C-alpha cells in the first residue's frame, strides 16, 4: 500500500503536470517539453520486456474487503496515465485492442481466446481441487495432457453459472482483456479418474457430482476453463504497482482499462470484479518472460451469484453502506431501495438479472473498488464506445454459445443484455462531448477535418446540434497555443484545416495545429466542453496526433454517493 508521503508527492507532481498543460497557451516557452513525440500516437506499450522470475504475491480477500470498505483515500486520483495521445489504451500485457479498434466477425468473437476446441474426449485425470473461490470445482488433465479447471453449476440453478461465465469470457476477450479459454463441456462421470497425487478422494468427487443434473445422455454439463499458461504469481491489485515487476510502472488505479472496466462490469453485472478474480501469470512468449494480467472467474456475472442466483442487492449496493443502513432502519421500511422493486424471470437458468431497474451510473461492485472509484468521464466514454461495438446479432450469438437448453431463457437473456448495453452506452456516451472518428481528408479547397458524433451515430440523440470550431497553431516545444481563426459554426461535423497556420517545426520537423471543437445541444450542456484535436504536418502529410478530452475529465462520481 502507498504511504501518505508517497501519495502526497505523487499528487503534487500530478498537479504540477496538469498545471503545466493548462497554462500552455499562456506560459513562456519551456525547453524540451514536447507534448508530442515522433512515435506518437503509441499503440503498443512494450511492457512485455524480459524480466527475472518473481515471487508469488497472493492477496488476502478479507483484507481487500476491509481495506476498500473502511479505508478511504489511499488510491491515487486524476486522469488515466497509460493512454496514448489519442486517448486510447495501447496494447500491453494488460489489454489488447480488439473490437474497439476494428471490426470483429461474430465467429471471431465466439472463438475468443480459444486455441483449442475444449477438453479432449477420453479419460480425464482428476489432479486436484483448488482452494480459491466458492464455486464447486476440480482440476483435470485431459487425454491430450491439457489441464482444465472443471466448474460445476449449483444444483439449484442448473446451467446458470456456466452460461454466464462463458458469455462474460467471450465479451471481455473481445473488449481486449486477457481471459482464460472457457468451454461448455459435457462430462461423463465414468471418464474421470482420480490421480494418485490429487489430494482429492474419489468419495469427494462422487459427492461433488452426486446431485448434479444429468443431461439426456447421462453426462453432466460443466464449464471447463483451461489452466492459464505460465506460472501463476498471484493476483493484481487495483492500486499501486507491483514492486518486483519492472514492466509495471503505471499505478493500476490510473490505468484506463482498469477504470473503464467499471462500465463493462456494470453492463454484465460483474459485481465480483475484484483483485482475487484476477491472475498474474509469469509467461514466456517469443523468448521473453514477463507477467501477463488476466481477468478470470466470471461466475458472479449477469444473473448468477456463483453458487446461487445473484442476490437482488448485487450490483446495486455495497455490502456495507452506513447511510443506507441508517435510512433503512429509521424509515421503518417506508423507504425501499429501487432494486427491491426489480422483477426477475422465474427461469432458474437466468438467475436474477434484469434491465429495467439497472442504472449504469449507480451500479456497484460488492464493495468499493479503487479503480472504479477513480473512473472519469473520459474513461467511461472510452469504454462505452467499445460496448457499442457489440451488435444485437453478436450478443445473440454469444448467448447461443452458452448452450442454454431453454430457448426462452436464451431469448430473455439476450434481450436483457441488449437492453443493458443500450443503457450503458446512452449514459456514458452522452456524459461528455461525444465527438469521435476524427479523420483528415482532402477536400475541394484543401484538407478538411471530418469527425462524427457518437451519440448521433448510435441513435441516442436526434440530429440538430451544431459544432463550433476554433483553430490554434501549436508549438510542440513550448506547448503554447495561438488562436488563428474565429469561431466557425457548422451543422455538419467538418471543418477546413487552415494549412498555413501550423505552428513552428519541432526538432523532428513536424508542425502542429489544434482544432477546439464544441458541440452545441441544449439537451446536453456538458457537450460545450471542447474536444481538442491536434493535427501534425510532416512533410505535407497531415495526421491526427492528439485528441484531448481532458476538459471533461472530472471523476464521474463515486459509486458510494448513489
Amino acid at each position: 500500500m502507498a504511504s501518505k508521503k508517497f501519495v502526497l508527492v505523487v499528487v503534487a507532481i500530478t498537479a504540477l503536470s496538469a498545471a503545466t498543460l493548462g497554462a500552455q497557451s499562456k506560459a513562456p516557452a519551456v525547453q524540451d517539453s514536447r507534448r508530442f513525440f515522433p512515435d506518437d500516437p503509441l499503440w503498443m506499450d512494450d511492457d512485455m520486456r524480459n524480466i527475472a522470475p518473481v515471487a508469488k504475491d497472493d492477496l488476502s480477500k478479507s483484507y481487500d474487503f476491509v481495506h476498500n470498505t473502511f479505508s478511504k483515500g489511499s488510491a491515487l486520483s486524476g486522469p488515466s496515465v497509460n493512454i496514448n495521445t489519442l486517448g486510447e489504451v495501447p496494447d500491453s500485457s494488460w489489454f489488447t485492442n480488439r473490437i474497439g479498434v476494428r471490426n470483429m466477425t461474430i465467429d471471431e468473437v465466439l472463438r475468443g481466446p480459444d486455441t483449442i476446441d475444449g477438453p479432449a474426449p477420453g479419460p480425464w485425470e482428476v489432479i486436484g481441487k483448488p482452494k480459491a473461490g466458492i464455486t464447486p470445482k476440480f482440476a483435470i488433465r485431459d487425454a491430450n495432457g491439457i489441464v482444465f479447471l472443471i466448474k460445476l453449476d449449483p444444483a439449484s440453478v442448473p446451467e446458470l453459472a456456466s452460461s454466464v461465465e462463458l458469455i462474460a469470457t467471450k465479451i471481455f476477450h473481445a473488449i481486449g482483456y486477457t481471459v482464460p479459454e472457457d468451454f461448455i463441456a459435457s462430462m461423463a462421470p465414468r471418464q474421470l479418474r482420480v490421480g494418485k497425487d490429487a489430494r482429492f478422494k474419489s468419495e469427494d468427487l462422487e459427492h461433488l457430482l452426486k446431485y448434479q443434473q444429468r443431461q439426456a445422455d447421462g453426462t453432466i454439463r460443466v464449464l471447463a476453463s483451461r489452466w492459464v499458461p505460465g506460472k501463476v504469481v498471484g493476483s493484481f491489485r487495483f492500486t499501486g504497482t507491483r514492486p518486483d515487476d519492472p514492466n509495471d510502472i503505471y499505478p493500476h488505479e490510473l490505468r484506463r482499462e482498469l477504470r473503464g472496466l467499471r462500465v463493462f462490469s456494470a453492463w454484465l453485472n460483474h459485481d465480483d470484479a475484484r483483485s482475487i478474480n484476477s491472475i498474474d501469470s509469469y509467461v514466456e512468449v517469443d523468448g521473453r518472460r514477463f507477467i501477463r494480467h488476466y481477468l478470470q472467474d466470471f461466475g458472479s456475472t449477469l444473473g448468477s451469484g456463483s453458487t446461487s442466483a445473484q442476490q437482488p442487492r448485487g450490483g446495486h449496493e455495497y455490502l456495507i453502506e452506513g447511510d443506507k443502513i441508517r435510512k433503512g432502519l429509521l424509515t421503518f421500511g417506508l423507504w425501499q431501495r429501487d432494486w427491491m422493486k426489480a422483477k426477475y424471470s422465474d427461469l432458474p437458468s437466468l438467475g436474477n438479472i434484469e434491465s429495467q431497474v439497472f442504472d449504469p451510473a449507480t451500479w456497484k461492485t460488492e464493495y468499493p473498488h479503487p479503480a472504479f472509484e477513480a473512473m472519469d468521464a473520459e474513461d467511461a466514454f472510452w469504454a462505452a464506445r467499445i460496448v457499442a461495438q457489440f451488435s444485437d446479432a453478436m450478443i445473440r450469438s454469444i448467448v447461443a454459445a452458452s448452450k442454454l437448453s431453454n430457448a426462452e431463457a436464451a431469448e430473455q437473456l439476450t434481450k436483457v443484455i441488449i437492453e443493458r448495453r443500450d443503457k450503458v452506452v446512452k449514459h456514458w456516451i452522452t456524459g461528455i462531448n461525444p465527438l469521435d472518428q476524427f479523420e483528415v481528408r482532402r477536400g475541394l479547397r484543401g484538407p478538411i477535418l471530418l469527425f462524427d458524433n457518437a451519440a448521433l451515430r448510435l441513435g441516442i440523440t436526434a440530429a440538430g446540434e451544431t459544432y463550433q470550431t476554433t483553430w490554434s497553431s501549436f508549438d510542440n516545444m513550448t506547448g503554447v497555443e495561438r488562436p488563428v481563426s474565429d469561431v466557425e459554426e457548422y451543422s455538419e461535423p467538418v471543418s477546413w484545416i487552415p494549412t498555413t497556420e501550423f505552428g513552428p517545426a519541432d526538432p523532428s520537423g513536424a508542425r502542429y495545429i489544434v482544432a477546439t471543437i464544441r458541440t452545441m445541444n441544449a439537451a446536453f450542456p456538458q457537450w460545450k466542453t471542447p474536444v481538442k484535436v491536434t493535427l501534425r504536418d510532416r512533410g505535407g502529410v497531415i495526421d491526427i496526433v492528439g485528441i484531448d478530452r481532458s476538459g471533461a475529465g472530472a471523476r464521474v462520481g463515486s459509486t458510494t454517493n448513489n
Partner: protein
Amino acid sequence: MTRTLVTNVAALIITLSIGSANASAQSPDDTAGRATALSAARDQKSEQLTPPERSMTERVLYWYDNHDSRLSWRGLHVNMGNFSGGAGFAGGIGLTQRAIGQPVVDPYQPNRIDLDLSAGRSILGYQRLAARVDVLNIADAPINFAMSWRDDQMPQEDFYGIGPDADHRVSYRLDTTDTTAALEWKPFRRLSIGGAVALLTPVVGPGTDGRYPSIEVTFDPASAPGLNGLPEFLRTDAIVGFDWRDSSTHPRSGGNYQVTASQYDGRHDTLNDFRRVDVQLQQIVPLGNRYRRIELRAQAALTDADGVARVPIIYLPALGGLSTLRGFSNGRFRDRQAVSMSAEYQWEAWWALDAALFVDAGQVMHQLRDLKAGAFETAYGIGFRLHSNNAFLARLDLAYGREGFMPYLGFKYGF
C-alpha cells in the same frame, strides 16, 4: 518504499499521453520517441525492485483467509451455553461431528450419523451437559431418528404463582435429566409426522436468587404442585407439522403449523399424570415484496389431568420470554392453559439486518372457558435480527410490558 516512490513518480511523469521534460531531456534529438522514454522508466525501475510486502493487518487477514477452521477445530467449538433467559452470562464448549465416517457432509446421505456434545455453565451457576446423536435418512428413506440426553442444573428459576394474577416472585431450583428418543417421517417435503419417548427426572428445590424468597417460603405443594417431590416421568409425544415457508431459518413467506400431543406419566405415581397439547402456528405475509412483511404467530399450550392429578409447575404452560410474551420475564405467567399471539411488521433495513415492530398478547387460565377477551397481557417493542443471505444468526428484541422494559438476546429463530 523510497525506491518505489522514485519509480512511481517517474512513471507518473512519463505518461503515454503527456510530454515529459525528463524524458525530453534524455532524448532531445528528433529521433527519440515516447517508447524510448517508457523504456528508460522501466530500466530505472528494474534497478529498484523490491519484493511485494504486506502490512501486519494484511498478514493477519491472509492467515485468517487460509485457515478453514477459524471458529472450530475438528468440530470443537465454543458456545454460549444455550440457556434460557435469566441464566446470566454463560459460555461453554461443544463438539459437533456431521456425517460421521463419511468423507463429506451430504444432507441426503443414507444412514448419516451426526453427533453433538456440549457443556456450558453460567455465572449464576446454571449448568448444562448435553449429548445428541442423529441418524438421518434411514435406509435412504425420509426417516430420521434422534437420541438425546441432557442434564440441566438451573438454580434460580422464577416462579410467580399460578394464574393470571399471580404476583409473588420466588426462586426455585430445577435439576433435570432428560433422555429422549425421537422418530420423524417426512412423507412429503413439507409434511412431517413424528413421535418421541422421553424419560424425565426432574428435581425441584430451593432457589438461590438472593433477591427473592425461595419457593418454599411462599408456596406449598398445594399452590405449587411438585414442590414436595416429583417422580420420574415417561413422556410420550405425537407430532405433526406442515411447513411451507421459503426458509426454515430466515423465512420471508409461507407458513409453519405444528401440533404436539404429549402424555406425561409419573413412574409409580399417578398423581402427576397429565396430558399436554402444544399448537404453534406461524404465517408470514409479504407486503408487496419479500423485503416487507407481516408475521403472525399464535400458540396454545393446553393441559389436562384426570381426577385429583396435578400438573407440576415445571410442566405448566407458561408465558413470558423471547418466544411467547415479550415484555415479561421467562415463565412469568403459568396455568393449566396458555394462549398467546404475536404480530410483527418486519422490514429489511440492510441485507444482513431485519428490523421488526411487534405486539404480543397472551393469557393463562385454568380452563379454556376462562379465556376473556379483555384479560390479555400485552407487550410491544422493536427487534433487530441479523442474518446472512439465507440463515438467521442472532436477534435482539427490546420489549415493553406493564412490568417494564425487557431486552432479549437470542440465537435461534422463531418459536
